[in-house]
């Protein structure tokens, strides 16, 4: 066991009962928007060790801005956190100094992005970039950092890892670059990995490879993963827990089987109805009419009301709380759910 591995191994004994990441009632606003408009509005999420939470939603739902806030990477001063807490292994990240955050990032928590070319520096070799993060956080020698980089490239199954260390990002294919970025993110064995649309730019056969890789590395290392995506297919493949976001809010949350087999929020139902399947055609798609409102038009009541076929007067005047359903962790922010009981009621 080398110096790096031993240090990494020492850091693993985090209590399994505490969530790795616990976001509660997070609110984020952009200075450019009118007062009172929040692009993330009362967002609560949590993920335990070795588990995968998928945050799913369409453009403008706030899923990426929440993940940036967790990493302390919100664009400043354009965006600010106005309320709520982000706890990482019990520590309040929002209270940490920039310096303390920089110590955590790339070490205990890491992030991968949709487009590896924007995250990798084109002027440095893959090996140098991975080694840099190891040397920075492990306080080890260049040679040890480089050895760790080679190990990581092997772990993410890049062929001929030893020679690939000296390759520049442009010399690799999109799938290989995504593997290199994963190698860099996991080099210090983080307890939390945030993956923002990690397979969206990839072809379907490469996407399947990368998802399988993330899953396998997670089993080996026990890393908690927050995967941000718009693709319910990807969610079904990898998630333990799911949070569905719409217009800055979590509208439904629960174990993955509940979300797909017992979808409660009309938006979740509409999203599932919008997706064609690979099996025999089940008829016309149940497309949701209209489009996501811009932040300027965000309502303080239910934000899906403008597109919802079940809308009532209450939906346009009052904010539905994220309430629990029966047993377990399944929660929905809708007054009307479950929808099949509505037709019998007086509206």
């Amino acid at each position, binding site marked *: 066991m080398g110096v790096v591995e031993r240090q990494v191994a020492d850091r693993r004994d985090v209590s399994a009962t505490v969530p790795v990441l616990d976001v509660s009632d997070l609110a984020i606003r952009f200075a450019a928007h009118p007062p009172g408009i929040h692009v993330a509005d009362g967002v609560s999420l949590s993920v335990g060790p070795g588990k995968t939470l998928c945050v799913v939603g369409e453009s403008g739902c706030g899923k990426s801005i929440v993940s940036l806030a967790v990493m302390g990477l919100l664009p400043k001063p354009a965006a600010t956190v106005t309320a709520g807490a982000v706890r990482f292994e019990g520590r309040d990240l929002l209270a940490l100094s920039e310096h303390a955050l920089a110590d955590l990032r790339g070490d205990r928590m890491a992030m991968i992005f949709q487009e590896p070319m924007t995250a990798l520096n084109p002027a440095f070799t893959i090996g140098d970039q991975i080694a840099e993060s190891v040397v920075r956080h492990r306080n080890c020698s260049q040679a040890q950092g480089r050895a760790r980089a080679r190990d990581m490239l092997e772990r993410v199954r890049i062929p001929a890892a030893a020679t690939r260390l000296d390759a520049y990002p442009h010399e690799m*294919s999109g799938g*290989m670059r995504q593997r290199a970025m994963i190698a860099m993110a996991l080099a210090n064995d983080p307890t939390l990995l945030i993956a923002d649309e990690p397979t969206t730019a990839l072809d379907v056969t490469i996407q399947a490879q990368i998802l399988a890789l993330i899953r396998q590395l997670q089993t080996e290392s026990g890393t908690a993963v927050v995967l941000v995506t718009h693709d319910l297919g990807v969610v079904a*493949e990898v998630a333990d827990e799911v949070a569905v976001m719409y217009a800055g809010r979590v509208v439904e949350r629960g174990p993955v089987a509940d979300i797909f087999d017992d979808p409660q929020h009309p938006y979740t*139902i509409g999203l599932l109805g919008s997706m064609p399947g*690979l099996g025999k055609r089940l008829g016309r798609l*149940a*497309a*949701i009419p209209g489009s996501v409102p811009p932040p300027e038009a965000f309502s303080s009541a239910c934000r899906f009301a403008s597109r919802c076929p079940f809308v009532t007067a209450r939906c346009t005047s009052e904010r539905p709380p994220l309430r629990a359903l029966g047993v377990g962790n399944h929660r929905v922010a809708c007054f009307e759910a479950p*929808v099949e009981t509505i037709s019998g009621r007086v509206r």
Partner: protein
Amino acid sequence: MTKADTAPEQSPPLRPHILEAEGIVKQFGSSRLFGRSDPVRAVDGVSLQVRKGERLAIVGESGCGKSTLGRCLLRLIEADAGSVRFEGVDLMALDDKAMRQRRKALQIVFQDPYASLNPRHTVATLIGEPIRFHGIAKGRDVADHVARMLGLVGLPAAYASRYPHEFSGGQRQRIAIARALASGPRLLVGDEPVSALDVSIQAQIINLLEDLGSELGFTLVLIAHNLAVIRHVSERVAVMYLGEIVEFAPADALFETPLHPYTQALIASAPIADPAARRQHALLEGDPPSPSRPPSGCRFHTRCAHARARCSSERPVSETVEEGRSVSCHFWREIAAAGASAPLAFTPSIQRQQRIAVFADALRQSSSQGGSITP
């Protein structure tokens, strides 16, 4: 059941061909400036027949040549070899003027509605241009025709005076469709028309294309990488890999019993929106090779689990499996006999199907009560 549900069943095999492409080849590059001389053979000897009124899909991953093929079919770029006959007329033989007139019947919708609409023109100009150019209407009638086209794609006539930047991505794609359909084309090519859109908007545009197809009766050639979209929309599918069609089949047959190992891998890689269907993927190893240096023999042999010596030396020819179905693989019979592909039959939970049905019913009711939401 709506009108769109009755159309997509298998096309009767005797419908005449509207478009016949034979031996299409298109090469790019061979720039000597940087010392590179290998041209990219984007499309390498593709033949394809499209039947009148059908919905045909061309599927493949990036770099397989599907978009280049689509452009060659419409002669938006000139093929290096091969011929394209549209309604019996050899498009390659037409001079520029005759080709421009012919475009009235051949239109295309692109992936990115942000790039395909001129930002300096109003919607009235954008949709009015093909109407004027092809002499569909003149003078004040043009505005009426524009309004009718907007209505057809579900937009209010008042939008005619606005500019593209005032619209969302889904609305812009509706405008692009209205523009493409304004000259009354008999063939519409959709080059990834929904891939840049969010899931809910994607469904709106798919439904719109299906409705318009049944209403106006145009033939649709859909170029896409999303297998689920293709399964839903199309009747026949051509699968491309590195510039060649490796399998061609009716959609149901292709998805239920894919014969080419690449088609099998492609379908097995596609995520299924049901955690119960989560499976160990039969993963395809490696990246697709560069189209400028395609592998010898069968181009798929470098990634194929069934590859043998013959595959790297001998290029497979397209074999007819049955009427309307062909595959280019030396060993497809053995692979099929060994049962290598047994795609998962997947049906969503009853509760999920019921909720989606309740949702769809409620949508129909709210729109019939006049409470329709502008797309």
